[in-house]
């Protein structure tokens, strides 16, 4: 797991092994057997301390479920989560409560993530108070954090969420997450619902905070531009599985999985003189209920062959810390295009 090429510290801050969560849906007395939504299937990855892991994928890929699994908001079916080498949950290792001091989450819906009946101050103080911080200390911390995220305490502490704009609320959410003094933040589409000009402000704030507090981020987004800007490593998910993972340069300049390339080519061109001429792939992401057999992407992949339908490609480490789950990348898989450089786009 820890290769000599790790950037800052030696230890990965967070590690997951074969994380899985399947939901039962429907079924019952007269409706036949329940169907399984395979939300997250055997996800294994790690995040180095002080870095940002960007997670991209479309609907049904499981990125939000994964975030909630990490935070313990949903109970996992199987697999393990380790923070600084210690197993979370279970008999030994770290308790969930202790893990929650290390990791906090910022949600997408800035309004829904704040109690409409609680003042801003109350919402931020809640976490520290729960963990035994004195009222006076919690209040002091709250005021300092509000100031740090750019909201003047005297004007914001007594306000209610509906009086704030989306960008201001998201700053409050960040302050609330930081009130617990965590070392990692899981950010689930934190800027997706914001206007572009406000998005830029909040992204700048996130970067400043990361540097100031030495934080580690998991940044989930559907916006590839934002992920490229903010991440050190990027993980691409499709239908509950990781299809590719690597450094941001590797993913954006040398994507190897057909889905990753399709995603990158699906970004609208910013230049009116060079417009996109054809869509990279057709169809829509299928439902995570009863996903396709073998490689889950084979139904939409232009390079799909028999082997892709039969056997699921493993997410193998290609070079150091870079992994692609595609038969074309695995010598000996049986795919006709193994090893060929088919960089036609």
């Amino acid at each position: 797991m820890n290769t000599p090429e790790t950037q800052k510290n030696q230890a990965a801050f967070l590690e997951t092994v074969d994380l899985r969560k399947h939901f039962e849906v429907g079924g019952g007395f007269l409706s036949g057997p329940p169907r399984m939504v395979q939300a997250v299937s055997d996800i294994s990855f790690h995040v180095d301390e002080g870095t940002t892991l960007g997670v991209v994928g479309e609907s049904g890929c499981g990125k939000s479920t994964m975030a909630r699994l990490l935070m313990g908001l949903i109970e996992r079916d199987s697999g393990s989560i380790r923070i600084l080498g210690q197993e979370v949950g279970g008999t030994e290792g770290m308790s969930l409560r202790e893990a929650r001091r290390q990791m906090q989450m910022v949600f997408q819906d800035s309004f829904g993530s704040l109690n409409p009946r609680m003042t801003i101050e109350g919402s931020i103080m809640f976490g520290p108070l729960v963990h035994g911080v004195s009222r006076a200390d919690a209040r002091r911390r709250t005021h300092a954090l509000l100031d740090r995220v750019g909201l003047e305490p005297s004007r914001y502490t007594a306000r209610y969420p509906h009086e704030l704009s989306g960008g201001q609320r998201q700053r409050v959410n960040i302050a609330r997450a930081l009130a617990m003094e965590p070392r990692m933040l899981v950010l689930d589409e934190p800027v997706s619902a914001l206007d572009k000009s406000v998005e830029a402000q909040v992204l700048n704030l996130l970067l400043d905070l990361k540097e100031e507090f030495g934080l580690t981020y998991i940044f989930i987004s559907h916006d590839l531009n934002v992920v490229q800007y903010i991440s050190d490593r990027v993980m691409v998910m499709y239908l509950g599985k990781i299809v590719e993972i690597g450094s941001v340069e590797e993913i954006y300049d040398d994507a190897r999985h057909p889905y990753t390339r399709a995603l990158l080519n699906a970004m609208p061109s910013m230049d009116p003189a060079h417009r996109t001429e054809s869509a990279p792939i057709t169809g829509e992401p299928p439902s995570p209920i009863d996903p396709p057999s073998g490689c889950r992407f084979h139904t939409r992949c232009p390079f799909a062959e028999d082997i892709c339908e039969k056997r699921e490609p493993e997410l193998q480490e290609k070079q150091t810390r870079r992994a692609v789950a595609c038969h074309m990348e695995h010598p000996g898989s049986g795919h006709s295009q193994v090893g060929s450089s088919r960089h036609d786009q």
Partner: protein
Amino acid sequence: MIASKEKDRPVVPPEVVSRGYWHGVISRLLRDKVSVACMIILGAIVLSAIFAPLIAPGDPTVGSVLERLKPIGEPGYLLGTDELGRDMLTRLLYGGRMSLITGVVPVTLALIIGGALGTIAGYVGGWTNAVIMRTIDVIFAFPSVLLAVAISGALGAGLENMLLALTIVLIPPIVRISESVTTQVRELDFVDAARASGAGSLTIIRAHILGNILGPIFVYSSSLLSVSIILASGLSFIGLGAKPPTPEWGLMLNTLRSAIYTQPVISALPGVMIFIVSLASNLLSDGLRSAMDVQR
């Protein structure tokens, strides 16, 4: 670097005195003319019921058969007399006390018990939810009037028994709505955020859930006020509730039945009072619901 950080600060909104959510609810309520009218009417009835001994012209239980069924406007008897010669106005005022008790007490008790049950069922989910909700469903399956009659009949006539019966009848719908609202609120992100900060279930219910569910539950319960009063009147009407000579509107309706051909207006008076209180409390609860549905 620092200079550009300053530029990221959002423009500070003008100094506005932050009013709480409930403050907003009350001010919206006060702007709704219908609600204000209902509040005044109900307030007047409640006050007159409380101060009945002071303002009533006569004695509710004393009457002279010689004075029976006097029409409205008769000197000394502002609203006439009933079949036993008692002053209607006095009996209506005292009757208000009884009827309001039969409205408020069962609803309040059902609110506390049903609200707690529903909230627990809604928050915990799983087996606890199933057990509570299905038990409640069994009780709920009985038509409310039938259930009230059955319980009251089994326990015997009398005010306390009637109140108990009414409370039991009102608990299921309140449990239903509490559970439904709690389940909805529990799904919201801020509850997840509270869980993520490591808070325990009771803390979360107290700090985050209660404030957000009390509103809808309270509104629904206030609409049950009229149901309770009418049920109580019905029970008294068939002799299962208040006993004569206690003045109670439902009971009065029963005893005045015989006078319906000779003095129809007087016979209808208790019914009119029930109608006014029911209508006013329903309209007020509607107004309260609108006032709480603030457009964010």
